């Protein structure tokens, strides 16, 4: 019995760890989706490219992990911007349908991953330089990396929320997400806001990628799984709601892990999509969505 309680506590902690990262990724993707309505699958590529940026800085240039994170943020930001300006903007100019934009995004992802493969080879690359130690709190054990995941994710997510709430451009983003036509009426330049959300969202994705690489290494195809988790977080929480995406990420992380109370652990990946499927069927507006 005691063991079961310990197991539940450990699984809950695991859920919180994974959920925090999902929340960060969910917010980073959800911000872009809510504002631009682009189903930005290539976010996965941004994440991978930025992580390779970090790996190069730390491993090749030997510049230390903090600079690696800076590199991930900067590379992510620039790469996201490049996608918006180089891929999506031309498509908007020809009034591409949502499906076509989605397919272009997929195409870009497929091509980009392979370019990464050609440039850096297929092998997993570690992001070294972090002193990993185990931490035990009662029956719950985790590592310093996972503690960093939680700390960094929440710090970034909360900072983003504050920025959206209290700054002029943050408000402009929320305005475009809430009512794009009216935003134009008050003089908010939609193109600039799009550029801004891609910059911010991609920066967060880059940092998220570096956090993942810290524990799980970097590889050309590393982005898809986390970004699928981000989709799920966003749709669980309800499109357009930043707090919703956070909650959705946490719910997803907990559901995947707490599922371990009843099912062998390798069902984890299935659980996430079963949850998504059920939510889309039963409550398409998301668990926390208003509509």
């Amino acid at each position: 019995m005691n063991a079961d309680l310990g197991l539940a506590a450990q699984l809950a902690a695991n859920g919180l760890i994974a959920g925090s990262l999902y929340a960060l990724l969910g917010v980073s993707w959800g911000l872009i989706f809510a504002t631009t309505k682009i189903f930005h699958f290539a976010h996965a590529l941004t994440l991978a490219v930025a992580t390779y940026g970090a790996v190069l800085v730390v491993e090749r240039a030997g510049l230390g992990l903090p600079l690696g994170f800076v590199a991930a943020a900067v590379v992510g930001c620039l790469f996201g911007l490049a996608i918006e300006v180089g891929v999506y903007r031309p498509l908007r100019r020809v009034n591409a349908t949502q499906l076509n934009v989605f397919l272009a995004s997929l195409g870009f992802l497929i091509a980009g991953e392979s370019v990464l493969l050609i440039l850096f080879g297929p092998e997993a690359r570690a992001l070294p330089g972090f002193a990993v130690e185990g931490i035990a709190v009662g029956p719950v054990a985790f590592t310093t990396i996972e503690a960093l995941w939680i700390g960094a994710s929440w710090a970034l997510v909360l900072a983003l929320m504050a920025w959206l709430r209290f700054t002029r451009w943050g408000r402009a983003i929320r305005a475009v997400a809430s009512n794009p036509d009216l935003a134009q009426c008050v003089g908010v330049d939609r193109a600039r806001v799009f550029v801004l959300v891609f910059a911010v969202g991609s920066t967060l994705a880059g940092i998220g990628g570096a956090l993942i690489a810290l524990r799980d290494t970097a590889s050309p195809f590393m982005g898809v799984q986390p970004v699928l988790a981000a989709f799920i977080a966003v749709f669980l929480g309800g499109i357009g709601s930043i707090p919703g995406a956070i909650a959705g990420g946490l719910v997803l992380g907990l559901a995947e892990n707490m599922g371990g109370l009843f099912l062998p652990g390798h069902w984890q990946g299935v659980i996430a999509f079963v949850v998504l499927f059920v939510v889309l069927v039963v409550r398409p507006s998301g668990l926390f969505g208003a509509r």
Partner: protein
Amino acid sequence: MEFWVHVLNFILLLSILGVSLNLLLGYAGLVSMAHGAFFGVGAYAAAIVSRDLGVPFPLTLVVAVAVTTAVAAAVTLPALRVYGEYLILLTLAFQMVIYGLMLSWTDLTAGRTGIAGIARPAVLGTPMTTPTQFLPLIAVLTAVAFAVAWRIGESPFGRVLKALRDDERATLAIGKSVLRYKVAVFAISGAFAGVAGGLFAHYQAFINPFSFTLDRSIFLVALVVLGGTANLLGTFVGAVLFVGLPEMLRFIQMRQDVVDAVRNVIFGGLLVLFMRFRPEGLVPEHSRLGRRRRPAPPPPDVSGAVVIARTARGDGATALVAQGLAKHFGGIRAAEDLSLTLPRGQVTALVGPNGAGKTTVFNLLTGFLPAETGTVTLEGRDVTRLAPWRAVRAGLARSFQDVRLFERMTVLDNVLVAIPDQPGERLGPLFFAPGRVARAERDNRERSLRYLAFVGLAQRASDVAGALSFGEQKLVALARLLATEADVLLLDEPASGVDPQWVARILGLIRQCAEAGRTVCLVEHNLEAVLAVADHAYFMEAGRIIAEGPPERLMADARLAEIYFGKGRR
């Protein structure tokens, strides 16, 4: 050449899958990111019954088709409620769940290790093992699949699918059960995927989850879109190009890992470039390639007036009676205690200021909005709770203020699709009574041309509807509405946004309809038009009817004028 035959077999198998997806995506406008999973369900169904139950070959294919059809139809039910990105995500979730099951349910699927030694089909006791031995079987089934898909796609059934793709609400409004068609097309699509899956399992003699990944689903969507949606030739061309051509890269002296990466770079890059520069794909829908060229329709020598006559259903003096209808949105009263009567063969108008709830009345009458209270009686029959498409079949049809034509279909097809009870809309007659279907189609085409002749657009019959001017579109919409053969026609602003010379023409046609015995009710802001055409008018304000009478009398009422134009200020 075994290798190239093998590649050809693969092209054929994937083109069956492409056709399956094209029916969904190209014809019905429904995205499926789960076709890799459907393919896998078919393959595993065949493999498992062959392995565990020793079921022999042609029977395994039947099982595969049955299982996949059932699974696809089951996915449809939730998929009916969601659109756009939600449908993408829902089918993606389904794909991932099925893939997860293939990997994790090891007792049934043997997981990643896969099922080996699947029995090869035997002809006269000798098993087919080489690609060349398989080719005839695969080729024949591919040909059958293309033929069946072509038959479906180019039939009245396929026409409804295209209507559904272009405008779901308008499809309901011409009396087609959107639900039935969606479930049917998902099931058919599933059946095709089952054929491909079953064949694949026996051909490879080995399957594992890797063949049924999200990547495969993505590849199939890309194949169909790049080839050209709603054009089966495009799918075949796409399969040749995107399955066949990359195999040639094998012969280039380069490292395999680089070759594969280069292939993906080209493929992904093409996807991006096509979406930007040629979103309609290699072979566009209305390309003359891949389909029979339709002869230009001969202008019918008889006037269209014959076809607009009422098909006798009832004979009382009133066609429709509505009583006590009410509807609220949140706290806002959209309709309250609405009662009205539509006398047979007359034109009744609903007038009132913007936002008075006139369109809401149409929505309530036709079932597009469920009424909270009240009843609607059509020819003595209670139609209050009928679904919109059933209301149309009962004889009550409506048009839309914003026209809502099926913009990617031809003008003729826009009208043709609205004709009720076409035998070719059902799969049974489509395949087993082709003569009856062909006869009905001939008659219906002629009939549709008469409707078009009635509105004066017969010469535009083969143009794509979206290319017409707004005024012409309104006329096509009227022809389409008449083609539903409904006796009671609710016209939402038939003359708004139309040039004055068109207005007179439209009003004339409306009058003719009434004289031919059809019952017309219209919402119109152009009060001159109302004066010219309506026998009787209801005046609405804030969800209520506050006056009724002949239009001239209503317009002479200073109180109503004040409501309409606003009160003078003190």
